[in-house]
């Protein structure tokens, strides 16, 4: 039987829920792929509808924010799943929506926190003291690691920095290559090398 969320399951998970749940508990890929796809189909549009509180100055775009919240919801679901008792598909859906709601609030909080972490360096007036005061110890540590990362970025040559900054903002590699007068292959290689360097530096720390 071919189902909407993957053609590897030969039965209807809704009507054969016990079998489906058993396979999920065995970490069976077709069942998990089916479940995660069903969650994506239902939770992501719901998150889009609820995204009204995303601050304008957020570093992330709405679709990225939604994907991050959705992914974090899945991770939490997977952590909670082994201890959960589920009688039908509605129970699984209920759990992911409850987690989604919580992760959405957590997401808004982290977007605001990111604003403080990433932009505090730019503040030079007295206001910075107030903002610093609001940072938690964890956020201070995060701010330190972002400052460190910025230093690593500074260590890259200007072209590498430019490629990575444009790429991180969503510009296509072909377009970056055209703008910088590089061939697409050279641009891709330089992007790869620069990211590799950054990751190595971060890992060493």
């Amino acid at each position, binding site marked *: 039987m071919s189902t909407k*969320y*993957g053609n590897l399951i030969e039965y209807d998970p809704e009507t054969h829920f016990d079998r489906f749940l058993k396979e999920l508990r065995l*970490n069976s*890929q077709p069942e*998990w*792929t089916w479940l*995660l*796809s069903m969650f*994506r189909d239902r939770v992501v549009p719901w998150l*889009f*509808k609820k*995204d009204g509180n995303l601050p*304008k100055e957020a*570093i*992330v*775009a*709405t*679709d*990225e924010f939604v*994907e*991050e919240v959705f*992914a974090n919801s*899945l*991770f939490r679901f*997977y952590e909670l799943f082994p201890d959960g008792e589920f009688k039908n598909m509605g129970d699984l859906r209920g759990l992911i929506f409850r987690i989604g709601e919580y992760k959405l609030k957590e997401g808004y909080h982290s977007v605001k926190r*990111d604003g403080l972490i*990433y*932009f505090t360096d730019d503040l030079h007036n007295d206001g910075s003291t107030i903002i610093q005061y609001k940072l938690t110890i964890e956020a201070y540590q995060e701010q330190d*690691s*972002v400052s460190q*990362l*910025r230093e690593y*970025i500074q260590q890259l040559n*200007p*072209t590498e*920095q*430019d490629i*990575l*900054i444009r*790429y*991180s*903002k*969503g510009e*296509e*590699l*072909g*377009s970056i290559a*055209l*703008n*910088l*007068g*590089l061939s*697409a292959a050279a641009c891709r290689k330089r992007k*790869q*090398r620069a*990211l*590799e360097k*950054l*990751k190595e530096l*971060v890992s060493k720390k």
Partner: protein
Amino acid sequence: MNNKQETIERYLRQEMDGKELQNFTFQMVMDPSLRKEIEQTRKIFKTLRTHPNPSVKQGNNWLLIGLLAIVTIGGAYLFYANFIQDKAEESQRSEERPIAQSDPFQPNLYFEDLTTRQMDFVINIENEINAVFTIEKNSPFNFKIKAALLGKNIPNKLNLSIWSNSFEKFEADQPVFSEILEISNNNQLRFQTELNISEGLYYYIFTTSKTDEPIKSGKFILQNT
């Protein structure tokens, strides 16, 4: 850097769909080390986004500077030669305008400045358009676009126009192609057409069909074999 890293980048840049996204989501949920790598890359991207742009010499800038210098000197010469005022004005305008029409591959600064506007939705282009395409001389170019629209208040129509890099064509409002495209009920955009255009640099621009406000732009190069 390996394929795994590029896969992570594709995920973070929202370039995945269908089975690839299904499989990656499964791996991401099951594999804590993959999650960690995704988080690390996401953090690097966020930091890069808030990092000031370095001053990088762009490709062929020397040519642009040279041409601007020539125009400036030419303008000054005309001024000192007591030409009429409108000549002086034209000269001044020439200094400001992008010099693109002299070279079919020279970037046009007006189009380069077009950035994605803040909208409630985004256009996620799924096929490779920003690229160099090679076709036989006098053959039509098959322009294809495959995109998904994500977000809120998604319109049911969008205007697509394609422009050569010539500033004159832009001033005269003469795109090489323009059409209003329908967005399907599941917010997908599928379109292709044959364009009889010569080799050179072209820009495509999506604008709102009602107010003609730019939403997304990109460019491609067409060259002959």
